[in-house]
């Protein structure tokens, strides 16, 4: 940005000079985005290789490749295709869904704290699941259904109450935060009432884990995430204009309420589907976009980069949770916050120093 203003304000610059400068900045930003995406993909591959080859029965990396190409023996096929690949795919797709959803929330509502974790959608899903486990004594796939219903119900309530002559960011955020607190205190209350073992099982669900996502649920999530990404790719073109604020966006001819509504709806569906199978993996939707925006650093919403950081963060957290501590596997939702938050803090501290200099 600095280059542009320099060139534009220097006396005697022609339009061509400015155009060149803008082009240079654009090229630099594009290089930076590609670099971020490529290094993220490389990191994800490394994590995936670790996850697929280590464990109770280790498979050497070359055998992993052979098995993936269809040349493994029976045990290898069982280990790779039935036990480990689903978990990796689940981490990648659920993480991508959370990252993208958080990025949309934050960009559309223009508040860096506006993520489904904080706006009550995840809390609603947790409440649905905790109520199913503790209140109704259910277990298994039904709990996912309740979680989905809980998340969508909270989103619907936010929608219905925040809608007044259109969907305004600040209303959506305020109502969402309020509902998140109601949900959280209800969860705390349910946990305090219940029998202690059951309460602990419910607590585990609210942390989030990808270890049991397989079969139909996995396929559902993968399809949902792909569709969601496509929809976002179509509708996200207006985001830079929307980021200028409603007044400018409207005066540039955008139907802000429609655009915001569609994008938020996709984001809510992404988070609801992801949460229903894996639980509300804590803070991925908050942290991943914040990291992505600082990696890309071109002032945009960094949607593609958020998909990448969400997937890498979740997959890396799952790998760490499985293998970092001997004798103890931590569910992925515990590790995401523990590694994501310090990284975000470090990025924040570093940008502060840079802006001061």
């Amino acid at each position, binding site marked *: 940005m600095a280059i542009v203003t320099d060139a534009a304000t220097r006396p005697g610059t022609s339009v061509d000079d400015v155009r060149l400068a803008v082009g240079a900045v654009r090229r630099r930003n594009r290089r930076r985005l590609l670099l971020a995406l490529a290094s993220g993909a490389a990191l994800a591959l490394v994590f995936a290789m670790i996850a697929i080859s280590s464990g109770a029965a280790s498979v050497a990396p070359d055998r992993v490749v052979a098995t993936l190409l269809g040349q493994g023996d029976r045990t290898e096929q069982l280990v790779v295709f039935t036990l480990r690949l689903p978990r990796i795919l689940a981490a990648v797709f659920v993480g991508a869904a959370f990252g993208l959803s958080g990025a949309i929330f934050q960009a559309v509502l223009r508040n860096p704290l506006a993520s489904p974790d904080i706006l009550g959608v995840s809390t609603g899903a947790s409440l649905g699941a905790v109520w199913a486990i503790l209140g109704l004594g259910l277990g298994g796939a039904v709990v996912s259904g309740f979680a989905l219903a809980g998340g969508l119900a909270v989103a619907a309530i936010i929608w219905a109450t925040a809608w007044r002559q259109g969907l305004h960011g600040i209303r959506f955020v305020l109502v969402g935060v309020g509902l998140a607190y109601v949900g959280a205190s209800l969860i705390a209350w349910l946990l305090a009432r219940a029998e202690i073992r059951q*309460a602990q099982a419910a*607590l585990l669900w609210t942390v989030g884990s990808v270890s049991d996502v397989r079969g139909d649920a996995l396929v559902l999530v993968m399809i949902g995430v792909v569709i969601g990404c496509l929809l976002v790719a179509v509708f996200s073109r207006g985001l830079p204009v929307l980021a200028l604020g409603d007044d400018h966006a409207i005066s540039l001819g955008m139907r802000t309420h429609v655009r915001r509504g569609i994008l938020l709806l996709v984001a809510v569906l992404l988070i609801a589907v992801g949460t229903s199978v894996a639980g509300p993996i804590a803070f991925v939707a908050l942290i991943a976009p914040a990291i992505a925006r600082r990696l890309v650093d071109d002032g945009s919403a960094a949607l593609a980069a958020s998909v990448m950081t969400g997937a890498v963060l979740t997959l890396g957290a799952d790998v760490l949770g499985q293998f970092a501590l001997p004798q103890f596997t931590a569910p992925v939702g515990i590790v995401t916050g523990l590694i994501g938050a310090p990284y975000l803090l470090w990025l924040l501290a570093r940008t502060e120093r840079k802006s001061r200099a």
Partner: protein
Amino acid sequence: MSGPSTVSDQEAPRVADTALVVAPGSSAGAVPAAAGTAPAAAAADVVASPRRRGRRIGTGRAIAVLAACTLALLAIVAASLVFGVRSIDPGVVWQAIVGPDPANADHNVVWQLRVPRTVIGLLAGVALGLAGTLIQGVTRNPIADPGLLGLNAGASLAVVLCIAMLGVSSPLGYIWFAFGGAAAAAAIVFSIGRGQPVRLALVGAAVTAFITPLIALVLLRDTETFNQYRFWAVGSLTGRGLDVAALLWPFILVGAIVAFVLANRLNLLALGDDVANSLGQRVGTTRLAAGIGLVLLCGTATSLAGPIALVGLVVPHAARRLVGTDYRWIMPTALLLGPVMLLAADVIGRLIVPNAELEAGVVAAFLGAPVLIAIARSRNVAGL
């Protein structure tokens, strides 16, 4: 024919939107110290005249609001003393207050159960109301509250650790740990996030994101700790005696003084860091002082009542709605509304379930949500 009508259709919302943009300027014009922003105020006079009624609020109305809040507080304190699972005649309650008789069972209930929880509710409510106002003023983020800035998470982690490692088992024993945890979290948040308000809010969220899984990690592995912690985490005014209040009230007093001294500085801060700087204010000093006040207020509130949701978020918004955008009026209003809301939650929790009680934390959330939704739906919601 369609041409002109389309133009006017587009014109109308655009004018309204300009009013929306300028509206903060008009509120700034109401701040005496910022009277230098004459162009903005003049523009506001031209454009925002239909909206002014809701924005400019005179001293008379503010005083009336404060009087009404004081009355409400007195009423709710009386209700908190009178209502309960055991029905006691209001006359007997009055006798117990003025001339307690140790042999009278009713008097004992009043003094040992109802007076302590009323006092705790008063103190915690005052602290939460003021803390929420401070935090929203400093971060200029309408969703900032003690929970989001990581203070509650810090206090909770400290309580969990003191149960799990030191075997502390009474709410009295948690106090200093909760206080220390909140202070440590605030120190981290304010030292990393001191730059911009946005960064402060983000750092707070990141610290919460770091601490919450740590708590879950301990709770998932240690059933006994979870069993104790879950009752603290709901948030309640019971089980604490007057001795706790006697120990902690000075912190709230100091925090309240800090909040009131900072009120006018928050007015300037609301105009943005640059404007506040150019008007001669030391923004960094304001933030530091606000941080100290916050730790005192939030730490005490969490020690007294556990992590209580929504009071710190709703009260400042409600106060802003009642008395306008001047923090010198918002502060006293929040001071009164905080205990009104918390004690109301406690009283309702006593009455709503026959022969049992619902914790104040749960009721406060249910009480706060409709208020917050109503505020969010109102026309001039931004106000920050």
